[in-house]
Structures are given as structure tokens and as C-alpha cells.
């Protein structure tokens, strides 16, 4: 009788130890995956606001995106290029992508819009929030129909990340 009870008690204790080992192993795996993700270089970009305006006496339009750029990796990096990619149709059944570079000098901009400097360093696990500004000359796209706008950022590790710009608030100066 006592032998059976002791055997069951030992079996239950062994099961408890085994379950706790499994839990510890799963936790270690989860931590390992998080650390791997941190080591893997990437950029996370999110859109906070987008505005556009037409400067007085200028035949162009400025399009700006306020972006939060996060470097969730354990390596430092630098933003080396920012472009606005406009997909448009110059002819029936044909789509083209035109790349407009980021402008660091602005004409007639609202005071709160200060363009990000390219190249901007991004520390490991750091973030940067700033305005990315693009100048569209009136005749550049002309009357062609535009399909979409994407801001594309490039960093010094060779990573490219884009964010789709969809609601653009027109502001008057």
C-alpha cells in the first residue's frame, strides 16, 4: 500500500519537474526568438500625418509626410535616401513609377514643417520622427492619372522600407 503511494508521489513530482522544464525551455525559446529579431536588421516606418500645399507664385506643389522611423535592431544605421514613389499611368494599360527625391530646402512652408536631414543617424533600438518633403513640379505628372503615393526610405545597411500615403490634407498658406 505505502509502496504504491510513494510511487504515485514520485511520478507526480517527476511530472511537475518535467512540466516546469518544458515551461522554462519554451520561455528560453521565446527570448531567443526576440533576441534574434533584435539582431536582424530592419526598419519600421509608420505614417503619422500627411499634408500638401501650393506655394504662392510657384508652379509646384509640396507633399509632406510626418513619419516615425524605428530601428528595432541592435545595429546602428543612417537614413541615406528618402523618395516619394508615384505610380501613374502615362498611357492606357501602362503604369510607371517616378521617384521624387526628398527636399531639405522649402519655399513658403508652415513653420512647424522642418524637413528631416538626410543623412540622419538612427541609433540601435532608436527612433526618429520627422517631416519628409517632396516637391512636385506641375508639369511633371501633368494630367496623367495617379494610382498611388509611397514614401520609400533607404538606410546604410541596404534596407528599403516604404509606407503608403493615402489621405493627404491640403493646407492653405
Amino acid at each position, binding site marked *: 500500500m505505502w509502496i504504491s503511494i510513494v510511487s504515485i508521489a514520485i511520478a507526480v513530482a517527476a511530472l511537475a519537474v518535467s512540466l516546469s522544464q518544458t515551461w522554462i525551455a519554451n520561455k528560453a525559446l521565446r527570448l531567443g526568438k526576440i533576441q534574434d529579431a533584435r539582431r536582424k536588421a530592419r526598419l519600421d516606418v509608420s505614417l503619422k500625418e500627411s499634408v500638401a500645399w501650393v506655394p504662392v507664385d510657384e508652379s509646384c506643389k509640396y507633399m509632406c509626410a510626418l513619419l516615425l522611423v524605428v530601428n528595432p535592431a541592435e545595429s546602428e544605421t543612417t537614413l541615406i535616401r528618402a523618395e516619394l514613389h508615384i505610380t501613374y499611368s*502615362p*498611357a492606357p494599360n501602362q503604369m*510607371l*513609377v*517616378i*521617384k521624387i*527625391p526628398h527636399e531639405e530646402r522649402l519655399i513658403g512652408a508652415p513653420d512647424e514643417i522642418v524637413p528631416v536631414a538626410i543623412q540622419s543617424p538612427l541609433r540601435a533600438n532608436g527612433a526618429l520622427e520627422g517631416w519628409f518633403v517632396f516637391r512636385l*513640379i506641375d508639369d*511633371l505628372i501633368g494630367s496623367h492619372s495617379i494610382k498611388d503615393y509611397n514614401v520609400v526610405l533607404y538606410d546604410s545597411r541596404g534596407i528599403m522600407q516604404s509606407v503608403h500615403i493615402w489621405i493627404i490634407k491640403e493646407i492653405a498658406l
Partner: protein
Amino acid sequence: MSKQNKEKWVPQSDVVRVVGDAGIAGQVAEGFTIPLLILDTSERPDIDEIIRVHAYLSPGDVMSSWAGIRNNSDLVALILNFVRPVVAQIAVCFSIEKQAILVDAALNARAMYIQAGRAGDRYIHDPDKPKILIELPEGDFHSQWESIFLRRMTDHFSKELKLSRKKAYPVAQSLLDQMRLISHFQINGGR
């Protein structure tokens, strides 16, 4: 045409026909003659756009590569991958027998102009028509071009003039020398 003999498939729709050509020597490329290609863009409105938008934006990026054509020893192709400001790819084929001078001038100047047009267009019709200058960095093809040309033209003369290859080779070499009087022409020593 690289030493690794890499094969690349280019869609037929990327191949653009050359309908006119010219040579322009001036203050660009140290005064060397730069070939101008007038491309038939009737099926490629994107090329019209590439040339048009260059007037509004800073100089763009284009990657170039030369290639041979499988089963056609008379053709070499120039593949241009436009990266910015507009994304596009075109391939231009040159007959070694008929258009080698364009290839030779482009390799010598390391540059080429392209202009949009239609069959019958000539540079002289409108010298101010928009065109873009494409830089062609030196690659493996530069060192191979002369032997490709001589091999092809030796075959050609051997067949057309019914000569042995040994006798046809000097004729091909002479043609290359004659061609280079024009394709390597440099104005004012580049100044």
C-alpha cells in the same frame, strides 16, 4: 557577355527598335563622338516619359549591361535598367555588320544619347529635341568587343568574298581601323 557567361532573359516587349542614329561630338565625354540613337517609342510610351521627366528632375540612375544573343552571332544587345527617376527596362539590339560603329563609339565615349522618335526621324530634323545622356561604365564587354567584331566580320567577309578565314581577317581588321577614324573622333582634344 561577361566572363561568367551569365544568361539573362529579356522580354520581347523590352526590345526597342533603333530607327535613326547620329554622332554628336562636343563638350561632353572629353569631346569624343557620342552616338545618338533615335528609338521607336510607338509601343513604349514609358521611354517618352523617361526622356520627358528628365527635364524636371536631377540626373537619374541607369544600370547598363551588354549581351550577346543566343543563336545570332551578328547581334549584340545593350540592356538599360532605369532605376530613377523612372523605373523601366529597355533592350537595344545592334547588328555588328551594319551598326558596329554605334557600339564602338558608345564604348569609346562610355556614353550614349537616346531620343524618342518614329521611323523616318533624323537628328537633323530637330537637333533640339529632348534627349538623355546615358553613361556606360566600362565592363567586361569593353575588352571583348574588338575580338567579337573581328570574329563576326571575318566570318562575314569569308562568306561574302569567298576568302579563307586567314585572308578575311586582315580585311576585318582594316574595316575596324577605318571605322575607328569616325567612331573615335575627338573634337578639339576634348577642350
